[in-house]
C-alpha cells in the first residue's frame, strides 16, 4: 500500500555551535530560527507557528513563549513549549506535523536551544542532579547517585552482564560514531578512535568512560515544518515525515518490560505502523544516544537487532560508514554535538535532503529517528524519508 507523507520539513538551521560562551539561550534560538527560515526560503512574516524546547537542566523559562516577541513574529496560530525530557524534540516536530495536517497552522518553526557549557566547570557538571528512582525524597542522594549518567550506567551494566558483553562493545559503538563524525564538518570531535584510545579514556561512572558520554555544546537548531502540498509548491529539498509514535509505559532502562524492552519499542512500532513499514524496511537510524549504551540499546528496543545482538552488530561495522544499517551518521551525541533531540533530527533532515556531503548515505529512503529521556522512560519516534510516498 502506498502511503503519502503526513508533513514535510523544508528548512534546517543552526546557530554557532561552540564550547565557549556564545550568547543566551534565547539569542541562540533566534539565530537558529533565522538560519532555518533562510534555508527554507520562508520569511518571518510567513511563519504562523512556533514550538520550543529547552533543556531540562536550563533555568526554567530560559526559552519561553515570549521568544515570539523577541523575534517579532506576526499573529501566530500556534505557540507552545514542549517538555517531555529527552523525547521533547521529536514530540515537538510531531506536534508541528499534527498542526499543519489539521490546518491549524501552515508554517511552523521548531526550535531547541541550550547553553550547558559554562567557563571553569566541567560540562558534565551541568547535568549533575540527584536522581529519584524510588520516589522517596533524597533516597538516591544518600548513596551518591548523581546525574542521568548514574542511572544509564546502571542500565548499561545490567545489559552488558545479561548478554555476556563487555566494555569493548560500548567502545565499538563510540568508534563507529567517530568514523561518521570524521566525515561531518559540523562535528566537534573528528579524530579517529581505536579501542586502545577508548580504553585509555578515564572512567566517569563505570562502565562509562568519558568517550561513552555526549559531547555538550552551546548552541541551537531549528527546523521548519509545513504541509506536503506547500513543500511540493516550494520545490526545495524536503524531508518528509511519514510516521510518528510515542511510548511511555512506566518501564525504564533499569526496570524493563519482561522481554527487556521499554516504551521505545512501542514508540518505534507506532511510528512504523503509521508509515506502513516494518523494521526490515529501515535503511538508516538517527538515535538519541547521550551514552554509547543508549545507541546499542535503541537498535534492540526499536526491533532492528535481536536482544543482546547490537554489540556484535556494531563491532562488525554494520552501523559504520559502508555498513548495512548506518546509525548516527553525523557522529551522534558522542562525537558531533549534543543538542539533545535536535542531534538525531537534524542529521535525519540532512540525510533525507541529500546534504550529507562525504557522509551522505545512498540508501536514505527510510530513516528512523528517536528521542528518549528519563532513564529510557519517555520515548518518541519518527519515520523520515526523501520520498513523498512510501511504497
Amino acid at each position: 500500500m502506498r502511503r503519502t507523507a503526513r508533513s514535510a520539513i523544508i528548512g534546517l538551521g543552526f546557530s554557532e555551535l561552540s564550547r565557549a560562551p556564545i550568547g543566551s539561550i534565547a539569542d541562540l534560538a533566534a539565530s537558529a530560527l533565522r538560519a532555518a527560515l533562510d534555508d527554507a526560503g520562508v520569511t518571518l512574516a510567513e511563519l504562523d507557528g512556533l514550538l520550543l524546547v529547552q533543556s531540562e537542566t536550563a533555568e526554567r523559562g530560559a526559552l519561553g513563549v515570549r521568544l515570539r516577541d523577541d523575534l517579532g513574529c506576526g499573529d501566530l496560530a500556534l505557540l507552545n513549549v514542549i517538555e517531555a525530557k529527552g523525547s521533547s524534540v521529536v514530540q515537538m516536530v510531531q506536534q508541528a506535523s499534527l498542526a499543519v495536517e489539521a490546518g491549524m497552522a501552515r508554517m511552523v518553526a521548531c526550535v531547541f536551544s541550550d547553553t550547558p557549557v559554562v567557563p571553569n566547570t566541567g560540562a558534565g557538571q551541568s547535568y549533575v542532579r540527584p536522581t529519584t528512582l524510588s520516589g522517596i525524597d533524597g533516597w538516591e542522594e544518600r548513596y551518591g547517585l548523581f546525574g542521568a549518567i548514574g542511572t544509564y550506567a546502571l542500565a548499561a551494566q545490567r545489559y552488558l552482564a545479561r548478554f555476556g558483553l563487555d566494555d569493548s562493545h560500548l567502545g565499538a559503538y563510540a568508534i563507529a560514531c567517530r568514523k561518521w563524525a570524521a566525515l561531518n564538518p559540523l562535528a566537534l570531535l573528528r579524530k579517529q578512535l581505536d579501542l586502545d584510545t577508548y580504553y585509555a579514556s578515564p572512567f566517569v561512572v563505570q562502565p562509562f568512560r568519558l568517550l561513552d558520554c555526549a559531547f555538550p555544546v552551546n548552541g541551537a537548531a531549528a527546523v521548519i515544518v509545513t504541509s506536503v502540498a506547500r513543500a511540493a509548491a516550494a520545490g526545495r529539498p524536503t524531508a518528509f515525515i511519514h510516521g510518528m509514535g510515542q511510548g511511555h509505559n512506566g518501564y525504564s532502562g533499569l526496570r524493563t518490560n519482561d522481554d527487556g524492552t521499554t516504551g521505545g519499542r512501542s514508540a518505534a512500532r507506532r511510528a512504523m505502523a503509521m508509515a506502513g513499514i516494518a523494521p526490515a524496511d529501515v535503511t538508516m537510524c538517527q538515535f538519541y544516544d547521550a551514552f554509547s549504551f543508549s545507541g546499542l540499546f535503541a537498535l534492540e528496543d526499536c526491533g532492528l537487532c535481536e536482544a543482546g545482538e547490537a554489540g556484535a552488530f556494531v563491532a562488525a561495522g554494520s552501523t559504520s560508514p559502508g555498513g548495512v544499517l548506518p546509525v548516527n551518521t553525523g557522529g551522534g551525541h558522542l562525537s558531533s554535538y549534543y543538542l539533545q533531540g535536535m542531534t538525531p533530527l537534524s542529521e535525519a533532515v540532512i540525510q533525507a535532503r541529500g546534504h550529507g556531503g562525504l557522509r551522505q548515505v545512498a540508501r536514505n529512503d527510510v530513516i528512523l529517528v528517536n528521542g528518549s529521556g528519563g532513564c529510557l522512560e519517555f520515548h518518541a519516534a519518527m519515520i523520515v524519508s526523501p520520498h513523498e510516498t512510501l511504497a
Partner: protein
Amino acid sequence: MTTRPDDSAQTSVQSATDVFLAFLAKRDLRVARLRSSGKFIDFAELNRVRSPDDCEWVRASGRARLFSYVVYHRQYHPDFPVPYNVAAVVLEEGPLLISTIAAEHQALLVDMPLTAAFDDAGRLIFRP
C-alpha cells in the same frame, strides 16, 4: 500531600513512604505488601499507595541480589569521595532499591547474592 476538606478533623496520616522510613530508622527493613492482592510493592510505587492501611509491612528476609552497580570515578559532591559504588539491589521479596555494597568494586558481580545491613550512620547497605 493534599488533604480533602472532610479529612481536616483527622490527624495527618503517615504516607506509605513515611512508614517505610520509620521502620528503617529503627534498622528494620520492611517491605509493603498489598492486603488485597498479596503483591509486594516496589519502592518506586510506595508513594502511589492511597492509604497506608491498604498494605501490611512484612519484615524483609534481608536476602537480596545485585541487579546492577556502577562505580563513580568522578567526584560530583564533596561528601562522596571517589571511587564509590552505587548499586541497584533486588530484595528476595521482589522490590528493587538503590543502595551501596560494602565491598571493593573489583569484587562486584551482577547477580551476586547479598545481605542487608546498616552502616554506622544507620544507612541501609548490603554485604556480599
